């Protein structure tokens, strides 16, 4: 709420236009994934930001079960340096 007014202070009284949001589907559920391999660097990376963070569920639409599997895979992949812990922006 507070965020809305901050973003657009002029339209305070107006009703904010609702953006039709398509319901996101869990990528892993669509593929019927039962196991996420930490060695599958490409797949793991797809769910990480360019800073090396795990992309939140609310962005990717991943279900809770698969997000847990994904998080575990990312952490393993980081340990053996397949993906970074952090990546600072290049200056």
């Amino acid at each position, binding site marked *: 709420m507070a965020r809305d007014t901050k973003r657009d202070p002029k339209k305070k009284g107006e009703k904010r236009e609702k953006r039709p949001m398509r319901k*996101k589907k869990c*990528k892993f559920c669509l593929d019927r994934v039962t*196991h996420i*391999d*930490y*060695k599958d*660097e490409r797949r793991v*990376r*797809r769910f*990480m*930001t*360019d800073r090396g963070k795990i*992309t939140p569920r609310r*962005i*990717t*639409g991943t279900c809770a079960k698969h997000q847990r599997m994904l998080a575990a895979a990312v952490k*393993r992949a*980081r*340990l*053996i*340096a*397949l*993906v*970074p*812990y952090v990546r600072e922006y290049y200056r």
Partner: protein
Amino acid sequence: MRSYECAVIVHPAVNEDGLRASTAKYVDIIAKGGGEITKVETWGKRRLSYEIMKQPEGTYFFYRFRGGSALVDELGRQMRIDEGILRHLIVRDELAEGNEPALEPGTVEATMRHPEREVREEVEHRGERY
């Protein structure tokens, strides 16, 4: 007996003979610890996502085996004190069926898992969104 996978990053300065010796050493440790090796694979030398002990790259090996927890402890201990190893990770092999044929320790050699994979810069991932 459970199935495990052990990932190892060997120091980039270790040459081919050294790599063979390293593989032989750990195959031996697994066999002596009552384990059964089902596969040893390598990715060859690869760029690391971050430097480990000042090294920008390393040679990846993967040991798949069955064994008990004492063996896992011993393997981890040996790898930790091995100066030729930058990093190791032993995890349960959840995909193993448990009936993969065991290899004869003396004959085990690391096979290339991804022949197309060499030291190469991964295309930078730019925060794709779904």
